[in-house]
């Protein structure tokens, strides 16, 4: 007779084995694809971005140049996915309920109140220097959201709600989102295409300085705002939800 423990173990073993097999096949196939490309595609197709991005966009960070200029439409789509995720979380979890007021200990709170302003510098640097150094709107926005979550965790949800009301988070998310879509229209009004950068007359600036890259720093800022506000309001919804649905255990 098989015991349930053994059966569960065997099921997991089979599942794990299948997953391993699948990922192996995946890797082999990708390596094959790479080999095929090396044989057939001439090298000038190889790197369409690196050689030209500084001259064309004014951003010395090639990744940001791709994300915010060449393929900015994808970034708009991704930012919209985050927006939709926030709306979905809100739709499923409902209104942020009665927040818990658990806080960290006194020492942690004192320490954090001194350190938080310093922590604030890093995400801003990541956002504003997105076209110069690794980073950008998404990464800086996530770091900002972590700060909001830290305030909630360390000082309690009620204090967090007082300092950064949920309504403000929602409004800044919607505002940044509308700004992001709206900036694209500048390209159309300038006689160029949607989300055009230098082609729409945005100044390219001196590559390597803060004021360069045309519209890229502005896009980084808006994406950062949107991501920060969106992710922190997902947290606010989750935090309120737990307090709402488990009242018996609390009392």
């Amino acid at each position: 007779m098989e015991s349930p423990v053994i059966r569960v173990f065997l099921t997991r073993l089979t599942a794990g084995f299948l997953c391993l097999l699948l990922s192996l096949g995946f890797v082999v196939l990708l390596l094959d694809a790479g080999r095929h490309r090396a044989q057939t595609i001439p090298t000038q197709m190889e790197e369409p971005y690196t050689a030209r991005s500084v001259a064309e966009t004014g951003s010395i960070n090639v990744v940001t140049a791709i994300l915010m200029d060449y393929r900015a439409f994808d970034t708009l789509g991704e930012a919209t996915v985050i927006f939709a995720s926030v709306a979905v979380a809100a739709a499923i979890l409902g209104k942020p309920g009665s927040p818990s007021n658990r806080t960290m200990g006194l020492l942690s709170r004192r320490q954090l109140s001194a350190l938080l302003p310093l922590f604030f510098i890093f995400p801003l640097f990541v956002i504003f220097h997105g076209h110069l150094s690794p980073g950008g709107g998404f990464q800086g926005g996530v770091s900002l959201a972590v700060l909001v979550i830290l305030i909630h965790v360390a000082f309690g949800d009620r204090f967090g709600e007082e300092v950064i009301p949920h309504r403000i988070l929602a409004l800044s998310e919607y505002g940044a989102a509308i700004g992001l879509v709206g900036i694209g229209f500048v390209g159309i009004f300038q006689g160029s295409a949607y989300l055009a950068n230098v082609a729409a007359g945005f100044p390219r600036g001196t590559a390597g300085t803060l004021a360069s890259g045309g519209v890229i720093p502005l896009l980084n800022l808006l994406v950062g705002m949107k991501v920060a506000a969106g992710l922190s309001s997902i947290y606010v919804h989750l935090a309120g939800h737990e307090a709402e649905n488990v009242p018996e255990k609390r009392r």
Partner: protein
Amino acid sequence: MNHLPVLVVVIPVAGAFLISLVDTVRPAFKSTAALLVATAHSTTLVAAAYRGMTGPALLYSVGEWIAPVGISLMVDSFSAFFLLLLAIGHLASALVRIESGDRSEWARKSAALIALFFAALSGITVTADLFNLFIFVELATVCSIGLIARKRHPGSAVAGFVALMAATISGALLLFAVLVLYVATGTVAMPLVAQAAPDLPAHLHGMATAAIIVSFGIKIGLVPMHFWQPRTYHAAGTTVAAILSAFGLKIHVYALLRLLWFPLQAPVVLPGVYSILLVMGMVNILTGHSMAMIERNLVRMLAFSSIAHVGYILLGVAAAGRIGGSAAVYAVAAALFHTGMHTLMKSALFWSGHRLIHLSRSSRIMDLGGIAWRAPGSIIAFSLAALAIIGIPPTGGFASKWFVAMAQQALLPVLVIGAGTVISLVYYGRFFLIATRRDPPDSFPAPHPLSLRPRLQTAVVLALAVAAVMAGTRDVQVRSLLLRAAEGLVDQADFVGPALIGRGR
């Protein structure tokens, strides 16, 4: 440069943000804002579709970066046909969903989510870039999960989770296919991939094709992968189920066809895949109809019927791929005809069913006995749409099934189509007899207090049902439109040409 290809995506995205903003600042104007956004989006869609149908393909380079560095969008006559369906869809769903004061968090967010869902579907339809397509598919998935998983509806959280798992597998497979094609060809622009596709090693091409078929097969409910659909539609409720089945599903069919014909060049490189699709189509018809016949729940019955009708579309598609050449145009046109008809019929069925279910507060067929006498407008629309979906001449549903059958080269698919028609006559007829029973129970439970506007809703479903019936008698006009759309898929000259010459900077 004509900006319509990008506007059909950007206007509803901006609209969704505006709806959320209006909902936070002035909640009373939310429904008005949603209706305005839907109207603006539908107008743009019709304009883009008109240009795509009448002129050469509209090509757009976002940010004035041409492929392979930038993202190209494209509207040709094939995508124009689906843009038309989306125009009907967004406007009709906004009209049907005008609420009277439901202030739950789900109702507040759902207006923005529907606008985003239609934005994502428009994005899938216009994009000519594989990775951009993946992003819009993901956006559509996220929005549909939010629409499905309503709070405080028993089973909806589980259904949302099952749908999420199915969508995750589907998304991973699509990403895998895009990755293989990108690594092998060095580009994600569809025209450039299409150029390189014939030279791809057979196993790479085959794996990418298989991954794409399974990925979109999950989305459209090909039979082994259909498990999530009835449960999801049931949990989502009729209003959302209509949006998912009548419009969301069709755009995923579009994506599958576009990917098979254009970047993968399957009719030339891998014609065997269409024989597989032919078998899957027949399995879908038989499974969907038989499951619908034994189903006791109206919403689940309609969901299984959707699975069956994907089969009819696939039969047309498979015939097109197997014939090849210019004869394929007729088969594709037949598949498109059935796609359009199913959009009209299924949205009319779901939305008129909404009123019936709403009045009796139950979606079990046995609980709906005699309900027809309480909502005559809805049952008329339901019956007209049911006549069309069964395939009674001279409705549009009959004409589209007839064309699909005419396109077949073998006897078996035709027999399957006939069998499916008979089975669907049984289960729709049975529902009609139960709903019009003369001895209704003395008292129905009081209807749910949060009512959508019944008269407006009835007018919308009647219009959709009448359109589905009338299309059969106007098949000469419909056919020229369909043939033009099918040419867009089969002859890709006006798509490949301008994309490769390059425009802009």
